[in-house]
């Protein structure tokens, strides 16, 4: 995985980009547009920014992001979060491209309300500083020595599984399971990303066994969110041998934990990267 292009837009004075539209619109066609020439047939795109909905708490407006090329959407919008309080959010997705053809992709912003805007904030100095809005594009090598496994489950209509289990169970043993061969190093980096609500923990499972990270016995859970629904990204380093099938496992922390994926929310994603030997 190599970095093809990066934009970190951090103006000296705080800027807030606002879109009030249920169709994605450019957040900033000048400063939040990234140009790159892919060298392989897939790229990984990562967006990071400080984002929030307008209105008041009870309005429950969703902020969505996507990528745009000209006046078209490169991919459908993905819900990012739902709160009027700003959160630095992380969104990533693998996208098919044509090698050697230059592309310019713009950051798309979309509100779930036709009357209440959503916002992306960046820049500033001192105590009010927000930091940059970041767009990154990475190349993914063709073949199987880089990205070993990929699941992007994006059903239409969207699915919204819930759990009240206090022990790990499979989220969806059919659709959220990835099969791959161990790399020479014996270690992989696994990423999980999906829209989640209510405190929950994630793990990976092989059969009915919960895996551990780094080959240790310390487990590998991490929280999603207590109260604020939004896209969560987790990452693990796991020892592996042979050919394996790993499933996305979850349990609640308290209450009823929920996941959302598919149309309007964006895919649930499992990625397995080979660690270099």
């Amino acid at each position: 995985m190599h970095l093809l292009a990066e934009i970190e837009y951090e103006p000296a004075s705080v800027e807030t980009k606002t879109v009030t539209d249920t169709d994605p619109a450019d957040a900033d066609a000048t400063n939040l547009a990234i140009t790159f020439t892919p060298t392989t047939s897939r790229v990984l795109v990562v967006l990071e920014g400080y984002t929030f909905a307008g209105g008041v708490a009870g309005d429950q407006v969703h902020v969505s992001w996507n990528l745009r090329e000209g006046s078209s959407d490169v991919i459908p919008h993905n819900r990012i979060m739902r709160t009027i309080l700003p959160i630095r959010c992380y969104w990533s997705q693998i996208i098919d491209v044509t090698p050697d053809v230059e592309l310019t992709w713009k950051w798309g912003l979309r509100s779930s309300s036709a009357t209440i805007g959503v916002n992306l904030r960046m820049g500033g100095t001192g105590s009010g500083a927000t930091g940059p809005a970041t767009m990154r594009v990475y190349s993914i090598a063709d073949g199987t020595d880089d990205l070993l496994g990929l699941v992007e489950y994006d059903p239409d209509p969207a699915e919204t599984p819930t759990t009240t289990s206090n022990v790990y169970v499979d989220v969806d043993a059919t659709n959220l399971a990835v099969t791959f061969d161990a790399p020479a190093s014996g270690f992989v980096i696994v990423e999980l990303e999906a829209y989640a609500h209510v405190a929950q923990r994630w793990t990976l499972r092989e059969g009915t066994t919960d895996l551990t990270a780094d080959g240790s016995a310390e487990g590998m859970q991490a929280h999603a969110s207590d109260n604020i629904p939004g896209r969560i990204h987790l990452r693990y380093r796991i020892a592996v041998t042979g050919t394996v099938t790993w499933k996305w496992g979850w349990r609640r922390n308290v209450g009823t934990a929920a996941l959302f994926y598919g149309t309007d929310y964006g895919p649930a994603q499992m990625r397995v990267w080979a660690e270099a030997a």
Partner: protein
Amino acid sequence: MALRVLARSAVWPTTSGGHYANETAATMEQYGAFTPDTADPLIAPVSITFTVPNVAQPKVLVMFSCDMFTNTAGTEHGYIGLHDGTAIIAGSRKRMSSGGPNNKRRVVYSHILDDLTPEESVTLTLMWEGGGADDVRANQSDTGLTRNLFEAFDVSAVGSAPIERLVRSVRAGVLV
């Protein structure tokens, strides 16, 4: 090319308590050198050391992820930045948030370093501060559930693209 991990430190918090970081935003610049709060390991790991890749234009992706927690009625945000032993690295200070009072949320911080000298040894220290008068914490005490990850990845472009294009052309039966 497989993902190259230059450094990785993971800590599984098991002790109770939280990391309080209620200094004002200006305080971080005034530290000069960051002194980790050794009495409270919850924010650890605070440092990683790696050797810069020996390529013409090295680029290193630094990531930190943890569960962030904001105290009740807190100011809902804090800052994370990177310190290289001399100063906070320009552009690395970024505002984070758990999304509101009394909410816990997984946050991901990342920053790419591209002003590096090949084969140089670099030690990065994580800076953490509250954004206001109230507490912003990492991994508040009720959990013991989460891993703090502080990582560095080699994301340099190493000129493999021409080879990949050649292989693709050969596969397609095209002479180059």
